[in-house]
């Protein structure tokens, strides 16, 4: 598939966030047959209050509690959040009203539900209708564009879901259009190319082959197109504004709804593909005009260009899953246009809102499609206001405490690009680092630099900037199409690696330390974190 061809082949026209610290050995666990399991549950009496569990938890699972949203504040106390993680707040819902809700189906949809197109499709429709009714959907809508899936963890604990998808594939079901998938959780070519890591990977992700085989049959292209930033032009999954899609992956949903103007809810693992196979999604929340209204006016009043990851983190913590309408950023987008050269600013801010909170859509005044069309009419009447000035930005950055076990030690690796780097970012970082090395009279960076990007972006960079890419490789900058957060979640990672990153999203999910670009460049060149940084 050639560059930008992905979407041309599409027939018609959405934090955690993955959590990946894992190398399970569930395959070794007893797996009772369904009948036994069901009986055990049906007859199981409440164990309320009883201490249980004789088995020992392996060390590799130790970081698993670091999650997208654990419902606890910095003080360890419950925050009282009421988030559905769909991007649609249901904080004011009542049981009586919710129970009365039933979605209307077309004759065609009812026929599918009745089994006219096979048992598997009927089951999928039943799941979708029930899911839609649960969240107050009025109807199912036909999907356009192309799906994006976050089903990327081939760990045995996902086996039941993978088996469901495998049964769909065996029944001949397929996505309505070729779709993109999140990056694989590992790279044994360039990143984890050592015996210890490889052993853990092949043990821990022992269902990866099964999952990749499912994707191949349901309609995903080859693994070169694996990325969380499916909307980059080199990958080409960027549907037209207003298109209904069913995306998963918090950062992609967030960017798609906001910068592209597509309409998707934040789908959890599995629900994305189920909707793709039916070509339909329940319309609620972020797919509706009402659900795209903003409850927060965010006024960015920093004296200089903001730290995009920091303000994104601030917004996510404040809004949780409500929608912000952000002012003060238009000047950073010439002519109010989001282009290949500036989209990384929104990518950095948005992914931080989606990982520190559960924001599935934001509006930037004068920039994003909804805001350009409707302006402040997007604000609800009783909206709240939050001002981010220099002081507030500094306060947020100060909350990114140093989580390294050895706090005063030097860094050992740099992680650039979460979500995946755009072409513009790859070239920018290549120049920043190699020019700084040249200035310092050094051939090689003091620490390895992992540059996360989809393969088509890497290929374009090689084609158009071969000399720079060659110099980057000599300097110890490694291009990889894996998921960086997955690497940061590996067994013993924090003991072995003291990472630094430009990604607030990665910081929100791991022990990596977050720094502005100029500090990172100095750190990469010298292997030391500048004093006072």
């Amino acid at each position, binding site marked *: 598939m050639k560059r930008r061809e992905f979407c041309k082949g599409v027939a018609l026209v959405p934090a*955690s966030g993955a*959590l990946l610290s894992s190398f399970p050995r*569930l395959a070794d*666990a*007893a*797996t*009772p047959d*369904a009948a036994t*399991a*069901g009986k*055990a*549950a049906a007859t199981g*009496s*409440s*164990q*309320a*209050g*009883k*201490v*249980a*569990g004789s*088995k020992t*938890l392996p060390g590799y699972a130790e970081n*698993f*509690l670091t*999650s*997208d*949203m*654990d*419902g*606890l504040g910095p003080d360890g106390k*419950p925050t009282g*959040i*009421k*988030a*559905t*993680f*769909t991007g649609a707040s*249901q*904080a004011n819902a009542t*049981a009586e009203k*919710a*129970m009365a809700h039933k979605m209307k189906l077309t004759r065609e949809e009812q026929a599918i539900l009745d089994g006219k197109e096979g048992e598997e499709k009927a*089951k999928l429709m039943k799941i979708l209708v029930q899911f839609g009714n*649960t*969240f107050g959907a009025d109807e199912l809508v036909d999907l356009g564009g192309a799906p994006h899936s976050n089903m990327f*963890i081939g760990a045995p*604990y*996902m*086996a*039941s*879901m993978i088996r*469901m998808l495998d049964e769909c594939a065996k029944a001949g079901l397929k996505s309505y259009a070729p779709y993109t998938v999140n990056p694989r959780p590992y790279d044994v070519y360039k990143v984890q190319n050592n015996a210890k890591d490889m052993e853990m990977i092949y043990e821990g992700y022992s269902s990866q082959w099964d999952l990749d085989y499912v994707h191949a049959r349901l309609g995903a292209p080859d693994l070169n197109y694996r990325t969380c930033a499916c909307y980059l032009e080199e990958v080409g999954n960027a549907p037209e504004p207003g298109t209904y899609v069913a995306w*998963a992956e*918090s950062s992609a949903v967030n960017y798609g709804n906001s910068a592209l103007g597509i309409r998707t809810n*934040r*789908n*959890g*693992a599995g*629900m994305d593909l189920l909707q793709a196979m039916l070509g339909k999604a329940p319309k609620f929340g972020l797919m509706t005009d009402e659900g795209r209204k903003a409850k927060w006016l965010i006024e960015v009043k920093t004296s200089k260009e903001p730290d995009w990851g920091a303000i994104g983190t601030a917004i996510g913590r404040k809004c949780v899953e409500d929608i912000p309408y952000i002012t003060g950023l238009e000047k950073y987008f010439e002519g109010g246009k989001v282009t290949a050269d500036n989209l990384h600013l929104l990518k950095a801010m948005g992914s931080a809102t989606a990982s520190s909170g559960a924001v599935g859509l934001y509006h930037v005044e004068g920039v994003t499609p909804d805001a350009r069309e409707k302006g402040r009419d997007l604000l609800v009447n009783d909206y709240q206001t939050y001002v981010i000035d220099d002081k507030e930005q500094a306060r947020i950055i100060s909350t990114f405490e140093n989580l390294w076990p050895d706090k005063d030690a030097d860094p050992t690796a740099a992680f650039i690009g979460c979500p995946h780097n755009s072409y513009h970012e790859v070239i920018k970082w290549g120049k920043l680092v190699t020019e700084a090395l040249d200035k310092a009279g050094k051939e090689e960076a003091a620490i390895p630099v992992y540059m996360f990007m989809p393969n088509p972006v890497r290929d374009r960079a090689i084609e158009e900037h071969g000399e720079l890419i060659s110099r980057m490789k000599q300097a110890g900058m490694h291009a990889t199409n894996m998921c960086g957060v997955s690497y940061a979640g590996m067994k013993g990672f924090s003991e072995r690696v003291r990472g630094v990153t430009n990604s607030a999203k990665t910081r929100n999910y791991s022990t990596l330390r977050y720094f502005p670009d100029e500090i990172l460049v100095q750190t990469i060149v010298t292997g030391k974190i500048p004093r006072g940084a």
Partner: protein
Amino acid sequence: MAKKTFKGRPVLSGKLEGKALVSKQPFNLTGSYLKNMFAGETATAPCTDSTNKELHEKDLKGAIICTPQTVGSTMGAGTVMMCSELGVQPQAWLFSSHIDSISSGGLIMDDVWNGKRVVTIDLLGDEFLEAVKTGDPIAIHEDGTVEVG
């Protein structure tokens, strides 16, 4: 104690009785089943969420879990399905708030696709969670009515 009645929405209806296991903080779905996911534990479901002082190390298998909602990794739907595959799932989920997408996707998929139902009631209200205590007798009815005491 005097019996108290609460009316919720049956997301997955059913009739059963048992005892409450209460977490007033949101239940971290993936973080609570680590021993089942990674240690080969199948006889019980010890809560592995050390941040959850009410439930840590208590057995979740066959329990009626009363909590505001679930939180955690978006892969949580896979955890829900794994629990029932291992036979360590709770008897019921009783949520005071609106159900979230993390648990609902997995619970509905498991119910419809695999025929494995965990009774699930949501929107029971903050008063429900204020009233219920671990060990309280619970009766759940098909229409979403929950009796405590």
